[in-house]
């Protein structure tokens, strides 16, 4: 693996973390949403990370030679399985016959921690990029 493909690797990780931050932000924004186009309250979303599949024959050959260093990507954004939280609020326009309103099962604190984790991972990968960059610059210094 040459140094430039390490940059690509970190780039993929950055993309994945950005998507994760996006989904978490959407969860936070919709923490109190009771109406969606699909009907019912907003459902919390999760991102699934997956290692990159080696693309084509060349990619497969490369990954076999390069000891399987692969990047990451977001394979899917899946809904949370938890049932919506019922709150008693008979005056609410979305209340059911018994006066209960379904709210998304979203804990803002949990989402904030998720968001911080995504930001930290992003930082980590930019640090990896800087490290790679300084390695390349170092090897150029040999010629000076």
């Amino acid at each position, binding site marked *: 693996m040459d140094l430039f493909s390490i940059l690509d690797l970190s780039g993929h990780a*950055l993309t994945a973390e950005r998507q994760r931050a996006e989904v978490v932000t959407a969860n936070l924004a919709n923490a109190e949403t009771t109406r969606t186009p699909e009907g019912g309250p907003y459902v919390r979303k999760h991102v699934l990370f997956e290692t990159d599949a080696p693309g084509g024959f060349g990619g497969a050959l490369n990954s076999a030679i390069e000891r399987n260093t692969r990047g990451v990507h977001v394979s899917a954004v899946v809904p949370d399985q938890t049932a919506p939280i019922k709150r008693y609020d008979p005056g609410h326009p979305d209340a059911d016959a018994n006066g209960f309103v379904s709210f998304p099962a979203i804990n803002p604190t949990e989402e904030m921690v998720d968001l911080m984790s995504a930001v930290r991972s992003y930082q980590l990968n930019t640090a990896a990029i800087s490290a790679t960059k300084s390695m390349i610059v170092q090897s150029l210094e040999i*010629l000076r």
Partner: protein
Amino acid sequence: MSNSIQGLPLTNVDFTAAVNPTQATEPSGGFTDLLQKAVQQVDGLQNQAQTKITDVVKGNGGDLHSAMIAVEKADLSFQLMLQVRNKIVAAYQEVSRMNF
């Protein structure tokens, strides 16, 4: 680092092709050819960086970080080319200063 920075293969240069006058006219191989290819690849990376930056600025959905990485790659490969060029020029000057 393995023996190449992406796109800039540092293969063995056949200096005999340049030294031997009978083979000098041969178009394939040779140091000039190698150098030209390297410059073209650096140019390719620069163009890539430009496209990505344009995408980001126009809002075509380009990722900011991938644009930055592309710029960084273009910069580093240019630095490599520059260093190699400096070395070649230095070697040439060294030879031209030679006393007979």
